[in-house]
Structures are given as structure tokens and as C-alpha cells.
């Protein structure tokens, strides 16, 4: 099973890297870009797990290890069952 987890800073936390990317895009003339938030992508392969077990484990590892819940949030999706 392949899973993708996206980790990014919470809306309440300033993201200077995202801001810098936005400014660079504006410099290139892409003035339609309203905001940029930067994050991390994890692609994880699981084996020997049913879907319901995976749905339990994925948010658990994201919360315990992949993201720091004080500053970050995460979303995830199963790419291949």
C-alpha cells in the first residue's frame, strides 16, 4: 500500500520560506499568486496491513513523528491500495 502524507505549518504560524517563494514569484511577474505555504511530502509504503489498520496507523505516525503538532498540521491519502 502506498500512502502520501503532506506536512505543513499551521495557518497561525508564520512561514518565512513560503513568503520568500511568494516574493520570488511576484518578482517574476506572477502577481496572481496570493499566498504560498511550504511543506514536506512523505511517500510511505506499507505492507501486511488492511485498509482500516492503515487508516489507524498513518495519522498516528504523522502525529508522533512526521509532524510536530505544536507548529505543523498534516493531511494524507492512500495512493495505491
Amino acid at each position, binding site marked *: 500500500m502506498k500512502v502520501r502524507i503532506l506536512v505543513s*505549518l499551521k495557518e497561525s*504560524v*508564520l512561514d*518565512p*520560506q513560503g513568503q*520568500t517563494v511568494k516574493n520570488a514569484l511576484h518578482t517574476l511577474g506572477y502577481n496572481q499568486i496570493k499566498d504560498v505555504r511550504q511543506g514536506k511530502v512523505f511517500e510511505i509504503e506499507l505492507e501486511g496491513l488492511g485498509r482500516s489498520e492503515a487508516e489507524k496507523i498513518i495519522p498516528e505516525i504523522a502525529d508522533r*513523528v512526521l509532524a*510536530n503538532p*505544536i*507548529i505543523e498540521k498534516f493531511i494524507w491519502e492512500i495512493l495505491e491500495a
Partner: protein
Amino acid sequence: MKFGVVVFPGSNCDYDTFHALQNVMGQETVFLWHKEHDLQRVDCVVLPGGFSYGDYLRSGAIARFSPIMREVKKFADSGGLVLGICNGFQILLEAGLLPGAMLRNKNLKFLCQHVHIRIENNRTAFSNAGHRGQVLRIPIAHFDGNYYAPPDLLSGLEKNGQIIFRYCDEKGKLSEAANVNGSVHSIAGLINRQGNVLGMMPHPERAAEKILGSEDGKIIFQSILNYLEKKKGTGKKKATRGVRPAVSPLPPLIGTS
């Protein structure tokens, strides 16, 4: 007193810290390899600066799973003194021994420079050799030192006197310019609620000798010694006097002055 300096793969201030404690402060000091399970009966554990595990994932995020961290946590839970410097501070945050988290510096630059920090609370095991409002000149060297805590946590830290150091200018004034990495409330160092765990971004071990340009870092080490000596001294009195209780109670680890 006996100090233990934890060595993670990627620690790079371990020898500087060892030198400051053993040769400058004259204390017995041992290295504690991160895979060990034994703290060798040290009186104080120091998590030194560096780039443990290459700062992968987040600074300090992987080091917290090292075997020795289980012992450090037990030691801290039982009241043992733990000092985290720079990457050591980041590890303490990730391990949950201190509240809050680190973000990238506000200007997205690695900062390696002398800064001034102000002692906000000197009634702690880590700052009693200084006075409140005293300005120390100590270097920083970090990419992720922009301390963040959500508003409710922050107000608790302020109320409980847990903020020990703030970035300031040489006169002790707080300003946005002096707050080089963008930390909330200019926080450069804080302790846990119990007062036995300190994390600080500036490097006291790099400011412990005149030849290095500043001796202000010694105040932190001397404070720890003062505290430990008082604590041990009280213990001795207790033993020799038998049933009589110790005359003076342990100095408060933390108090708001």
C-alpha cells in the same frame, strides 16, 4: 560535581562543553554515548550543540528516540538537572521535556554571531550566579532558533517565570533588531515548570574564557554548581544530624522575583 555530556551522531559542541566543564570549571566530566543506557551517576546532564542526525526531519526530532534519552527523561522526571544548549534545546523541545517548538530563523539565515541576552529570572538552578536584568554576551550559531509557543502556553511561561533569557541589545533593551532569530517574546532560554530543565540557544561553553572574548557563559555553569553544592550540603547536614530535619530547605528551583 559530576557532569555528563551526551554525544549524538552529529553533535559538534560536545568537546567544547566537556572542556568548559572539566578544564575551566574544574569539574569531573564524562561523555555519554547516545546508545548507552547508564547516566553514570552524574549530577547534571548536558545535551550539547550540533546537528544531531543531520537535522533530518526537524532539528532534534530524531535524537529524541536515542536510547539515552529514555534515561535523560527519567533523570529529569526525578528532578535531575538537564541543560540543553542549541541543538540540545531543540532536542528537549522535541522530546517534550520543554514546551514549544523551533521554527526557522525569521531572516532564513544561519546566524553565527555574538548576541546579548538578559537574565529575566535569577532564582533558578541555572541563573542564580547572575542578577536579574544582567546582560550577558554569548554567541549563537543556529538555523532553527526562532522559538514558538502558542499564546496560551506563552502566557503560562511568562506568569510562571519560566523565561530565563531574552535577546536584547548591549544595554539590555528589547527590540525587534536585537531579537535576531524572531523568537516570540524574544525568548533565548526557558526552563520547565519544575525548574530542573533549561534549554538555551546561545552557547555558554563558547563564552567561558577570556581568550574567547567573553566569560559570561560561566554564570550558567557556576549557577548549576551553586545549586548542586547547596543541595548536597543540605543532604550532608541531614545525615550527620540524624533525626533533626535539615535547617534550611533546598533552595527553590524556580521562583518569580
